[in-house]
């Protein structure tokens, strides 16, 4: 056997090319490991409390997809989650961290309720106007945080969070006050603490596919996901947005105004949450009436969807369906005797699990880079 002298490569690309495959394999393995760890932990939790994990899994699957008509319900829940997530993606890409979607969603729903129950007019027109106004209302509510940030440097993470709790009270006020949104129909047995129901013709039309009914809000959300993905990846507008998020200094040097672009991003992230609220209301959530508990965590969960999708608009679609599936699936848990809160646990564990691989990979890459750098020195 002759002694083969392998020439040491001088261009680093040659070295990194195989190690890149290696690192991709590592990442995939990490994802699989942490993902299964999260599921295992959830299963363990169910088992410890004396229930059958396979039964729970079966019930979730039945409730979300397999039982007749269920995946339509899943899509109905997924639509607002996806919309919220898309707004979050726009914000995160621009380096704006809006966590007040729950409140912005309520503002959007309130706008829809106002248009639907107080304005007269042909139904379809009301729906369109309501959606537009919901979009604007959610955005305006987020813009409060933006205003505070620009004028006084108040971090939007805190202000948007606090605005959520104010939004709860605003809605509470609106649905208990006669001259605002409260249902004053004298035929109702007790004094209502909800808004009046939207008129029959001001409701989103439902599609029926193989006995699964879902409203066209879901289709709208899908279309918007594609549009946002395109805008962010392929247009100057999207490039400026990403530039601001990646490096505010460079963005400033090339003339991207942090104030203007940042405000727009925050406005849009709130506006999508508002749109989600409007879609929920006109799509039949809580029987077309605005209530105090209307948002029911859709805003928070939409936020988690965006995080889980690592701010990729198209990846938000399956993630939103996954989260919605856990939610609709939890409706079937009663038969297994397991509290439906387990679903929240599974969701949170999944998000935590999916945070780990990129972080570990990041640290490894840093170590490797440092090692290479010290070797070269």
């Amino acid at each position, binding site marked *: 056997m002759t002694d083969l002298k392998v020439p040491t490569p001088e261009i680093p690309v040659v070295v990194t090319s195989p190690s890149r495959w290696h690192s991709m394999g590592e990442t995939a393995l990490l994802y699989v490991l942490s993902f299964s760890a999260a599921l295992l932990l959830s299963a363990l939790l169910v088992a410890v409390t004396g229930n059958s994990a396979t039964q729970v899994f079966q019930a979730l699957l039945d409730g979300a997809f397999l039982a007749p008509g269920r995946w339509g319900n899943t899509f109905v829940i997924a639509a607002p989650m996806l919309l919220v997530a898309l707004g979050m993606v726009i914000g995160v890409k621009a380096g704006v961290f809006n966590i007040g979607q729950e409140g912005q969603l309520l503002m959007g729903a309130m706008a829809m309720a106002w248009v639907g129950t107080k304005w007269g007019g042909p139904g379809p027109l009301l729906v369109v106007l309501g959606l537009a106004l919901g979009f604007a209302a959610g955005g305006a509510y987020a813009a409060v945080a933006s205003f505070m940030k620009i*004028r006084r440097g108040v971090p939007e*993470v805190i202000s948007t969070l606090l605005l959520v709790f*104010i939004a709860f009270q605003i809605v509470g006020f609106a649905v*208990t006050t006669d001259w605002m949104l409260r249902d004053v129909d004298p035929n109702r047995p007790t004094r209502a603490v909800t808004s009046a129901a939207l008129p029959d013709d001001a409701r989103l039309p439902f599609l029926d596919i193989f006995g699964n009914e879902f409203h066209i809000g879901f289709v709208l959300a899908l279309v918007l996901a594609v549009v946002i993905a395109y805008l962010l990846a392929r247009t100057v507008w999207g490039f400026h947005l990403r530039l601001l998020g990646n490096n505010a200094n460079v963005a400033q040097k090339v003339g991207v105004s942090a104030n203007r672009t940042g405000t727009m991003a925050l406005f849009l992230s709130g506006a999508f949450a508002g749109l989600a609220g409007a879609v929920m209301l006109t799509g039949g959530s809580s029987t077309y009436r605005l209530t105090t508990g209307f948002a029911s965590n859709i805003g928070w969960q939409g936020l988690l969807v965006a995080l889980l999708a690592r701010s990729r608009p198209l990846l938000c679609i399956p993630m939103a369906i996954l989260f919605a599936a856990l939610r609709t699936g939890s409706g079937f848990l009663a038969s297994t005797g397991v509290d439906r809160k387990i679903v929240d646990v599974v969701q949170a564990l999944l998000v935590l699990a999916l945070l780990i691989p990129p972080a570990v990979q990041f640290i490894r890459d840093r170590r490797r880079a440092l090692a290479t750098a010290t070797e070269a020195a």
Partner: protein
Amino acid sequence: MIGDFLSAVFDIFGSSTMYGSAVRLGALLAFAGLGELVAEKAGTINISVEGSILAGAFAGTVGYHITDSTVIGLAAGVGGGLLVGLIQANMSHRLTADQFVVGLTANVLVLGLAGFLNAAIDPMARRANIIEIPLLSDIPLVGPALFGQTWPTYLLYPLVPLTWWLLYKTRWGLETRAVGENPQAADVSGIDVNKRRRQAVYYGGMLAGLGGAFLVVGQVGTFDAGMVGGRGFIAIAAVYFGGWTLGGVVLGSLVFGMADAFRLATPVLGYQLNAQFLAALPYVLTLLVMYFITKQFRQPSGLAQPFIRGLR
């Protein structure tokens, strides 16, 4: 409406029960706020404080349920809060996951876990006894409010100077503050930045957990998964309200406690005030304070900035 409001304010601030309930309601905020202050001084906006409180409340309830001892309940609460702190700190300052993402997720996790386990175990707790401290509780108006509470409330009083001492009089505190102000400089001078930040978050989690256990065994007496209901976020607000000073945080907790007590007291005294407005008051107040005053105090300049050596 405004006249009503003012006369209600006047009436209520003259009654000593009002001060009593303000301290009772503000104590939780102070427990959590003190811990949050330390975490923020080190550079972490510890959003998971909400989860820490709830974990502490649940662990405290379970601890009490098993041992029938308030002391062990409180200790278990500290442990529960620490557990959330461990997740938050290690995910965001050992790994490099975003601190807000981790915090929010931890909150969802604890909310689900507490609800799920509460349904499975259904632990029972009981409120600790009220101990009136002689002499001190005889002071008019503030005496019974400060010294006529359930005994776990009194844990708060030594914790205030302890936190002050820890933060301003020890080497650890100096390093912790340095890490929050300028992590790069702290790193160059040989401080393990992320380690200090983790420790500060542990401290924050433990105090928040203690606050949660206090909520159960010192205030309410039973556990409910919705019992914290955003008050962890008010504790964060109290830190902002107090401009990152110890006295300010305590004052902020009291003010928010008072706002809460005010909300609960108005219907009892027969005033027709808008309940929603009063419930929103702490949040509105904090936003206004942040808008008008925050610039005058200086937040730790490394706040919410992750530290990775060689990157900035």
